[in-house]
């Protein structure tokens, strides 16, 4: 087995509620994995268990083929960056970043060198003497990152590291953090509820729901082929329509409120049909057609989300804002290629 982190069938309950029910996944050495899921799905609990700050009820956590069972947090050599940063308010920036190095009893000259190196890495080279309480949110975030990177942790865990920041700053920092982690070849586990963050930063995504792993795949694959209705909904694909699928000479035919659609690949019986919101056009491209009337539209910057009523079913589509935006009440003809736009789940 390759080196890195491996979680095997982890269970953890708090009282009667099962926070994690049989979670397994790996993080290979040098890989950045995003742990994605809605709040309360068990992401943070997973981090606490890997950190050693909580103990699993069942299952094994393995690092480089050795179980971490019984090893206290300070001896694991992992780093954890908290959502609220948890900077020590009674220390300045330098002492905060130096903390882990001093705990490792490095000589003070080495501590100084490593602190400066870490601060330079996060773009705060002259902040040593500053009081952490007077830093802006973005600066605190960088100091926290520098502090968790300075001891060169085997595995760095980041718990919603950008969650407390406003949108503009967050978007800029996503790229910075991503660059820093990739340049250092840092093995990292990045916890977030924001798919954009997860996609931008990670090599692979572990999608978690209600204490269980829903899907593990690369960001592209996750987006292109959500493995479950939960995954589809979580990624913002809401056009799910009940239907029945039958085998028809070599292919499949789905019958639903959207009419009959032929597919080359599907499952038989009662199904849910997903119509991807971004794979539909107004230019007549594709073999399928739907007629509908616009009931609502909302402008979202790059795209415009248009709600269309098709045979009493409300569907939402994203069209590029560069095109003329369909107005409310307008009749539309929507076109799509079923192989691109349709996905089928067993109901």
């Amino acid at each position, binding site marked *: 087995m390759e080196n890195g982190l491996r979680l095997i069938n982890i269970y953890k309950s708090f009282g009667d509620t099962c926070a994690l029910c049989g979670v397994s996944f790996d993080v290979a050495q040098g890989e950045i994995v995003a742990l994605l899921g809605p709040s309360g799905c068990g992401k943070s609990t997973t981090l606490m268990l890997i950190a050693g700050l909580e103990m699993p009820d069942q299952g094994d956590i393995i690092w480089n083929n050795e179980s971490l069972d019984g090893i206290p947090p*300070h*001896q694991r050599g992992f780093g954890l960056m908290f959502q609220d940063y*948890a900077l020590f308010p009674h220390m300045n920036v330098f002492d905060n970043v130096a903390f882990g190095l001093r705990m490792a009893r490095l000589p003070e000259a080495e501590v100084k060198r490593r602190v400066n190196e870490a601060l330079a890495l996060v773009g705060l080279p002259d902040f040593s003497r500053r009081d952490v309480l007077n830093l802006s949110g973005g600066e605190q975030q960088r100091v926290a990152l520098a502090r*968790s990177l300075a001891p060169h942790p085997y595995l760095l865990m980041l718990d919603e590291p950008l969650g407390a920041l406003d949108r503009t700053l967050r978007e800029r920092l996503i790229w910075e953090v991503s660059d820093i982690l990739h340049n250092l070849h840092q093995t990292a586990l990045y916890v977030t509820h924001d798919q954009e963050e997860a996609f931008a930063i990670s090599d692979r995504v572990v999608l978690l729901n209600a204490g269980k792993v829903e899907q593990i795949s690369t960001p592209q694959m996750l987006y292109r082929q959500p493995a479950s209705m939960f995954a589809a909904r979580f990624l913002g694909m809401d056009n799910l329509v009940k239907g029945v699928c039958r085998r028809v000479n070599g292919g499949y035919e789905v019958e639903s409120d959207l009419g009959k659609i032929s597919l080359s690949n599907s499952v038989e019986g009662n199904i849910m049909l997903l119509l991807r919101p971004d794979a539909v056009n107004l230019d007549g491209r594709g073999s399928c057609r739907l007629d509908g009337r616009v009931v609502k539209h909302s402008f979202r910057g790059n795209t415009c989300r248009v709600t269309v009523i098709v045979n009493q079913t409300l569907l939402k589509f994203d069209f590029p804002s560069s095109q003329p935006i369909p107005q409310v009440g307008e009749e539309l003809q929507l076109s799509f290629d079923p192989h691109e736009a349709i996905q089928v789940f067993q109901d």
Partner: protein
Amino acid sequence: MHRNGKLKLPSWAGALVLWAAPLAFLGVFYLYPLVNILKISFTHSDRAVSPLIQALSSRSIQHVLWFTVWQAILSTALTLLLGLPGAYLMARYDFRGKALVQALSGIPFVLPTLVVAAAFNALLGPRGWVNLALMALLKTTQPPVTFVNSLSAILIAHVFYNTTIVLRLVGDFWAHLDPHLGQAARMLGANKWQELRYVSLPLLAPAITAAALLVFIFVFTSFGVILVLGGPRFATLEVEIYNQTLSLFNLPIAAALSIIQLICTLVFSIIYTRRVKHLARPLSLHPRRYTQHKLSNWREKILAGALIALLLGLLTTPLAALAARSFTRFEAERGQHTLVNASVTLDFYKELLINRRQSVFYIPPVRAIGVSFSYAAITVILALALGFPAAWALSRDSKEQKSPIDYINQILDPLLMLPLGTSAVTMGLGFLVALGRPPLDLRASPILVPLAHTLVAFPFVVRSLTPALRSIRPRLRQAAAVMGAPPLQVLRQIDLPLTGRAIIVAATFAFTISLGEFGATAMISRPEFPTIPVAIYRFISQPGALNYGQALALSTILMAVTAAGMLVIERLRIADIGEF
């Protein structure tokens, strides 16, 4: 300034009107007596030096000073030693019976000193449970344990009294301290001790020093405990002021000692106030439920169990002993010297109603209960009448920045708290020297004691009313009005429920403080109008099983009333209004 055609007074004028009565009260009954004490302590008598110099150069007084300081240091250290682990346990762990420990730990702090002294006497005194048991066991007539009149009695009673302060002040701060800070330290390679040393303790430092200072101030001015449990061998400054006044009639020396003590407590109080301000440091504070753990392994459970047992033992045994002893009579069997026959009895309570020639009073002791309750009722009225306008003035929001109201409040707020930093005996002395002669001769007036009690209760009343008044922001009234409440409904639904509770809390504070007050009362109460604590003191310093039993019976009654009062306060208090 002109609105609705009416001429409006500047807003600060309104503030001054509100301040008038409380300030006049403090001026006449606090500052005027203090000035008198000051005058006496600097006035040359027949000797060539002022009483202050005389006091400071006296060997015995130096001894008293020295004892006051080191017993205070020792008591504070012992209190921290028990309180800090307790605070950690309460802050970081969730366990069965925690609510009980919390509730019980609050009781000692509010108990009158005389009750505490009586309680320890009932447990460890010559006629207490421990000695009675040992005497029966060893078949002797002499109590084998000498606890009363010893230093350990003083220290244990002080720890009993003040552990709550550490538990509450440090425990609360600790409970709200972001657990991520400690976890971050662990993740950076710190073990549990390093986490405590480099992260938790430095962050707790302001809370710990504040608690330590508060405990120190309390034990530095300790009076009832020393008087009853320490006996004649031990005297703090406070006790010495009392002795110099009432036994030796040496008012100049008493005044000089008061001044010395006042300066000390003032300095400590200033440091304390500064420290408390640091508590507001913008640490990220978190709701309790995110910061607490269950006891997980056996080692933790055993350590925690031992600590809880120790805390509960210390906090409850003396009180249980007191109540039980007040209902138990021991009789020697005929022809035998050892005490054997124990029986449950209401005699000590019945005896309170009887007027016996041989008792200290020529009036039934139950009279003390009547006197105490009357004094307490007057205190409640006075304290509310004076505290309400002060609290109202303090809670007024100035609309403009840096308005005169802010300045007035900033100056007057600490002034209100001054009586807190002044020892009760000093206040009593001040009343004696200032209000016993023209222009203000109240010596014969029964109002003197409630006035002193009002002075003691005043800061507590203001502190409980202000947050409630402040919480009624105009927004709340506006919100109610927008939702359709006419003005009368607004008053009924918003103002009254919010202030009503606070007023009950403040009144209960005033009532229980008045019932339990001993230091000032001991100085100024008239022999024919003893309060409950004064009566307890007289009974407990007299020989005889009957006197002892009556002291315990009175103490038990006082304990029950005070505990009930605190229960009312705990139930009705809105959020955690800091009463320290």
